[in-house]
């Protein structure tokens, strides 16, 4: 009951004219920045910090503005995923897999609206999770030592097999490629440079935003160049259908169990400081696929559940990531790292005592999250029609704009021409990989998680004085490894055998009936 009265106080803090206006502005700007390739939530928040300072905002209003941007960007990332097959930021990567096929089938409006609702469900319940469970959830984060994190990341990679149904060797190749790229840079454990060839620009490693924008956005430009038509031919082409712009109740009901399941999964992934939102959306998608579509019949081909799952998952993870940030002062993702820095500069020290020392800030923030959430839903559903207009722009004009925005997004953050060159390299690599039917998602996952995976293994083994058995030394690690092996790795081998047997059996039957 005390929690609820605290929350009521929070609403009293948050519900002023100024704060609501800030939340609205934040949600709007965040949505735009999330949708633009190259500007993810973390950079979006970082870019708006000066604005918050220039306006001379107090702690609570500044936080309201910036968390609205954060949530808005999490919403916005999906827009370009669905419409252009280019993720606006890394957690939206999984939404491409089913969102873009839906758009191609003339269901872009439905996909956008559904993903908006799924984002809302994920974020809404995650915020309640934050309200009710934050102190207890901290204990969950403390269950995860280095060995447990290593097992968790292995599990994430094991689920890759379930995502691209075609050639498992190509998934493995792509994952290894991503992991290999992640190794570039100064080794954080010993301080020696690896695979840098003496190039100072590579010492910090390759920014995964550079990789994701290059692989997805630029390779898309190349694909269009490959298949370009003249203006006359394009005009003759049938117009892309937008379809209805609200999802039917039937579809929402159909996707509700998916949304609820993935909200829980995403939230837990978000609470773990080493995992974050990308892992949340990733695990949500692959687990859901495993559960409802183990044969790979509809997922990846425009299944609405394949849109709902990662969106609910990543928005739930965004809420979950606030738990370790507020209660431990440990950022669980790039964005919460930036928010943490903001809190510090506003004279607030996140940590175990934040909830008792600055209750007005915490509860004001949580109330703001609720408000932002409803605002985003209210803003996003009517705007679906507007977003889909993007598809009316002919690709010959749209694609160069996307390419240039990608360049600016990267250059504006890092100020480095070198990064842009690396990005072009990724663009060409992405084009070749697509031609070869190698999935791009594992490459990104590899660059994203590679370092964390390696350092956690090394931390665990070093703490155990070189004893590798520590990697399976706790009950939790054994559980995670078992799920990875029994649930995902064995079926690849066994599944092939079973399928082949079934096929021969069916062929026999067919030959008999003939």
């Amino acid at each position, binding site marked *: 009951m005390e929690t609820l009265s605290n929350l009521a106080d929070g609403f009293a803090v948050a519900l002023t004219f100024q704060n609501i206006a800030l939340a609205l502005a934040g949600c709007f700007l965040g949505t735009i920045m999330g949708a633009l390739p190259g500007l993810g939530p973390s950079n979006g928040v970082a870019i708006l910090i000066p604005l918050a300072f220039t306006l001379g905002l107090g702690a609570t209003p500044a936080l309201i503005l910036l968390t609205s941007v954060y949530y808005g960007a999490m919403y916005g990332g999906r827009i370009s995923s669905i419409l252009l097959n280019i993720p606006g930021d890394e957690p939206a990567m999984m939404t491409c897999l089913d969102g873009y096929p839906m758009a191609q089938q003339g269901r872009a409006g439905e996909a956008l609206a559904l993903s908006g609702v799924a984002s809302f469900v994920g974020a809404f319940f995650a915020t309640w999770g934050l309200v009710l469970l934050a102190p207890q959830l901290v204990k969950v984060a403390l269950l995860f030592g280095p060995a447990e994190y290593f097992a968790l990341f292995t599990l994430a990679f094991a689920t890759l097999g379930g995502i691209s149904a075609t050639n498992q060797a190509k998934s493995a190749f792509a994952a290894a490629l991503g992991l290999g790229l992640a190794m570039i840079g100064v080794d954080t454990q010993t301080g020696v440079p690896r695979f840098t060839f003496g190039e100072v620009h590579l010492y910090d490693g390759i920014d995964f935003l550079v990789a994701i924008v290059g692989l997805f956005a630029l390779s898309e430009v190349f694909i269009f160049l490959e298949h370009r038509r003249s203006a006359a031919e394009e005009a003759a082409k049938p117009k892309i259908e937008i379809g209805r712009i609200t999802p039917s109740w039937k579809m929402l009901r159909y996707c509700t169990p998916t949304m609820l399941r993935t909200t829980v999964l995403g939230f837990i992934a978000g609470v773990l400081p080493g995992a974050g939102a990308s892992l949340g959306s990733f695990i949500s998608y692959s687990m859901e696929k495993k559960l409802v579509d183990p044969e790979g019949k509809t997922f990846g081909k425009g299944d609405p559940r394949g849109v709902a799952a990662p969106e609910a998952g990543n928005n739930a993870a965004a809420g979950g990531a606030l738990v370790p940030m507020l209660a431990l002062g440990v950022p669980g993702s790039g964005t919460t790292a930036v928010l943490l820095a903001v809190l510090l500069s506003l004279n607030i020290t996140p940590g175990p005592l934040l909830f008792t020392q600055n209750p007005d800030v915490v509860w004001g923030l949580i109330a703001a999250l609720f408000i932002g959430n409803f605002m985003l839903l209210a803003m996003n559903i009517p705007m679906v029609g507007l977003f889909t207009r993007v598809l009316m722009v002919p690709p010959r004009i749209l694609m*160069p704009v996307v390419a240039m925005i990608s*360049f600016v997004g990267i250059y504006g953050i890092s100020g480095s021409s070198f990064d842009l060159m690396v990005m072009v390299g990724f663009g060409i690599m992405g084009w070749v990989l697509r031609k070869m039917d190698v999935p791009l998602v594992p490459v990104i996952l590899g660059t994203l998680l590679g370092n964390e995976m390696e350092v956690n293994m*090394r931390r665990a083994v070093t703490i155990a004085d070189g004893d590798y058995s520590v990697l399976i030394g706790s009950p939790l690690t054994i559980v995670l490894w078992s799920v990875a092996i029994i649930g995902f790795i064995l079926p690849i081998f066994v599944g092939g055998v079973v399928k082949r047997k079934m096929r021969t059996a069916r062929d026999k039957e067919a030959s008999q009936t003939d």
Partner: protein
Amino acid sequence: MSDRIFGGIGLLLALIYAWQATIIQESFLSDAVGPKTFPLIIACILALASVYFLLKPDPEPTWPSYGRLAEIFFAALVMLAYAELLPVLGFLIATALASGYLTWRLGTPPLQSVVVGVGTSVGIYIVFKLILGLSLASGILGF
């Protein structure tokens, strides 16, 4: 055949990667695992997957004609030149040139491409520089 060539390149890549991993200079202070172990494991996975492509190739993808390959090559070249010249020419000029070129090559009439190029450049400048306050390259002319 494409898959076989791809597998061959992959194998070569794995070997080079493994070789590069073995020559990582280790410092006196090292943890129990060391900086080489994990890269070597990655090289193994890369090699195994490549060998699989060599043995069991997928059906051939449809490659574009040489003309289209050249098109892609030149687009990549323009992008690289853009990256290199951005700090020299400044954002507005470089972006107008690059996006104009891409628009033209994607099948827009030349004159229209110029308009689109300039429009894109100015539009992005307004949104990113004036509204969001990002620092875009200024170039020698100061804009």
